[in-house]
């Protein structure tokens, strides 16, 4: 089983979800890629809905191997990520 790179995961998520202005804070964690995804596209969605979309995209790309290639992903809107900046 080949490992995926941070760049590959970013490309898959950006393209399959058509993410608006995405910012990725991903890093390798063991054999997986984990981290946070920030995009306006998550606005108005609950966290379970965001996770469903993320994993539908990853499952479509990697099939049953997705769970072995990608770890935890948190999905933020820009407002949620920058909440303490105002």
């Amino acid at each position: 089983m080949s490992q995926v790179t941070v760049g590959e995961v970013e490309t898959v998520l950006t393209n399959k979800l058509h993410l608006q202005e995405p910012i990725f804070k991903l890093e390798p964690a063991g054999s997986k890629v984990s981290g946070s995804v920030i995009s306006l596209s998550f606005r108005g969605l609950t966290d379970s809905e965001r996770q469903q979309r993320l994993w539908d995209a990853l499952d479509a790309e990697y099939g049953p191997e997705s769970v072995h290639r990608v770890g935890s992903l948190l999905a933020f809107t820009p407002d949620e990520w920058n909440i303490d900046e105002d």
Partner: protein
Amino acid sequence: MADETTKKSTAMGESGYRAGARDRIDEAFRLLRAEQFGGSAYLAGRGAEGALRAVLWKNDVEIQQGKKSLDTGHDLRALLANVRNLGLLRAGGRDDAFATAVQHVARLWYNNMRFASTESVEKKWFMLGEVRKNHTFKQATTEFYDACAVVIKRCEALCHK
């Protein structure tokens, strides 16, 4: 018996609590998708607890120095109070959603959930009015997951400050 060196090397710390919280909420979602609601609720709540602990560890020097214990039991409301007492939350009600999410989780989650059957969790939530006519255990667990995710994400943002 663990010596001091072993204790220090196995101490959680901010990064340990954060990584654990992220893993637990990830696993909780996988179980939610598989309709394994008891396990999902337990792991999501544990993730919320870990995230609150990470914030306290990062921001309380006395905890880092071992002068004060992080051992608040598993009382999420007490953890929230400690976060608030450190002055980390925004004024003017701008962190009300976070506080409300912690209260939601604290009302439904209990440490001994780790021993409980899914049926007993559902019964307990029914007794609490969370599961009721036209509001299924699946819906309640999904909303519980969402509340835990709100807590964990706010704590992540606080740890990035």
